[in-house]
């Protein structure tokens, strides 16, 4: 049994007086114990909303979540709020994008780490702080004893993200969700944080869902990659398959738009034309069709189905990039 089995997860945002917006549209994927799974896509493709829906952290009002999120066989969407509270932080940890705003500005770092241990492991404050110090040490924060009493504004951005990782991993959860954990950091710090995450996940056997728009992050970390577009999974492949031959024109375009050291000098970088604003609704065809170079008539006649590929992945495309072109 998979650790996490997301089935037909949909999130519809509905505000009074506005048309409902389908942010996540029947997304399905699985995470095996210890596996690292990527959710990749551009802003607004539904990757963060997916993760918040799994955690049960979407606002209580103004949205409708449907489908199933099976964690160890139990549907998280059907849990009572109190039971979900028991699982968050204990079974599933989460790291967010902006480490400064994600830490409480008026509470010392030590307490922010310790409170999760007090909540789930029944530690008292003193013992929890001792363990918090060890956790800060484990995530590579220098002089952890001193940091316990310091406030978020007193430490650097990289250290803040390390502290958040310590919080998320404090109770040794079986699943960690990282929502763009390096976006707000310098490039050099990004690499350090990713290395740290990889090391911690490997050591503890924690499964990881990596949410990112950065294909470099995917290349370094993920076993399996789900590419999202307009709230749907459009391509799923093992990491090497995806980088070797991405079949969906969108994924292919994304990979081609990454500058490469071995490309001839003076060659122009490929760009995907248009923007997300050009999307058509999935009910009318493929959302990516207006921006697609491979568009055919079938693309505007209804949503293409997600179908298995020869290489063991899945693909939602009527006219995928040919194997030869993709392999180039």
């Amino acid at each position, binding site marked *: 049994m998979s650790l996490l089995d997301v089935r037909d997860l949909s999130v519809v945002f509905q505000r009074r007086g506005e048309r409902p917006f389908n942010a996540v549209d029947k997304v399905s994927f699985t995470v095996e114990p210890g596996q690292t799974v990527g959710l990749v896509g551009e802003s607004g493709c539904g990757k963060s909303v997916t993760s918040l829906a799994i955690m049960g952290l979407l606002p209580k009002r103004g949205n409708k979540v449907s489908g199933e999120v099976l964690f160890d066989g139990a549907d998280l969407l059907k849990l009572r709020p109190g039971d979900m509270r028991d699982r968050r*932080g204990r079974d599933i940890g989460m790291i967010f994008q902006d480490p400064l*705003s994600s830490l409480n500005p*008026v509470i010392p770092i030590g307490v922010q780490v310790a409170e*999760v241990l007090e*909540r*789930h492991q029944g530690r008292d404050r003193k013992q929890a702080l001792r363990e918090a110090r060890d956790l800060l040490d484990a995530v590579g924060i220098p002089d952890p004893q001193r940091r316990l009493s310091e406030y978020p*504004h007193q430490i650097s951005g990289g250290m803040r993200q390390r502290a958040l990782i310590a919080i998320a991993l404090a109770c040794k959860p079986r699943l960690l969700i990282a929502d763009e954990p390096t976006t707000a950091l310098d490039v050099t710090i990004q690499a350090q944080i990713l290395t740290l995450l990889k090391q911690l996940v490997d050591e503890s056997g924690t499964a990881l869902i990596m949410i990112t728009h950065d294909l470099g992050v995917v290349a370094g970390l993920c076993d399996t990659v789900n590419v999202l577009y307009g709230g749907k999974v459009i391509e799923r492949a093992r990491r090497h398959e995806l980088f070797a031959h991405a079949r969906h024109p969108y994924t292919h375009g994304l990979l081609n738009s990454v500058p490469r050291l071995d490309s001839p000098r003076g060659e122009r970088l490929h760009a995907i034309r248009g923007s997300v604003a050009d999307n058509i609704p999935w009910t009318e065809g493929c959302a990516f069709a207006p921006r697609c170079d491979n568009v055919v008539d079938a693309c505007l006649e209804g949503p293409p189905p997600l179908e298995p590929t020869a290489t063991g992945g899945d693909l939602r495309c009527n006219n995928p990039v040919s194997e030869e072109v993709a392999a180039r």
Partner: protein
Amino acid sequence: MLRVIVRRLLQLVVTLIALSALIFVWLRNLPGGPVDALLGERATPETRALLTKALGYDQPILVQYGKFMQRILTGDFGNSIRTGDPVTEVISRAFPATVELALTAMLIAVGLGVPLGYLAARWRGRLLDHLTVVGTLLGVSIPIFFLGYLLKDVFTQNIHWFPPSGRVSIGLDNTNITGFFVLDSLLTREFDATADALWHLILPAFTLATIPLAVIVRMTRASVLDVLNEDYVRTAEAKGLRQRTVRGRHILRNALLPVVTTIGLQTGALLSGAVLTEKVYNWGGLGTLITDSITGSRDYPILQALILLSALVFVVVNLVVDLSYAFIDPRVRVR
């Protein structure tokens, strides 16, 4: 920190000196004056001249001011023109009454305002929230003197729940130690007097509390709504913390930072409300003293001291708020 306090106190001294000069000149340029007030319209020029000379108002204003400042340095604010009592004595008799009233009003405003504002934010868009928004709008817009007479009429004339005026019932033999009647009666264990003092206190305190209450409710509500959307609240939820912990430690603590500033400012502004409230309920405090000293006799010495005292209270309250900020918000360094 100590250096900051010392510097702020020095600034305070300068402010007070400048203010004293201003008041001194300004009061003496108001139409009418103690001589007219004491002698009435039909006094002969001779008596006027005599009294003016006796009070020292015939001297150049600079000389008068110099003498005034000289006496202040020895703690002598002069004597009341009307009664002849030393100003310090008159004021220290009235001061506890006003402080008691103002503190009770602030207790009501904070004690009701913060929970109400918090609940309104939590139940945004529901009935309580709408009621709060409308209620606070009324609270800040209804003039105190109007509300005061309204409450007085309803609660003391129509239904006799509260006494109409004064600080204690006539004939009640309460011991006076500090001048704070509630505190005094508690100290001497005269609990019937405590109940009586509280009973007299409730209506005036509520009247005086309306504006700060409304402002604090609005501030708390807005601030909690801001904090609810903060990323660190989401982090707290992602940790699976109990709702109580998320609300108390993560939401309310941050939301109250701006409310503290508001509380400070409102406390400073309370004196102006106290003047009207005390008038309505015949509360023998500083407010009553100010109105009596202006309308009755243009009692220059009393007025000068009272205005300086209000300024002093205002500045000190603000200093306390600024300093307290450094304790409750670790990001703030007091400079």
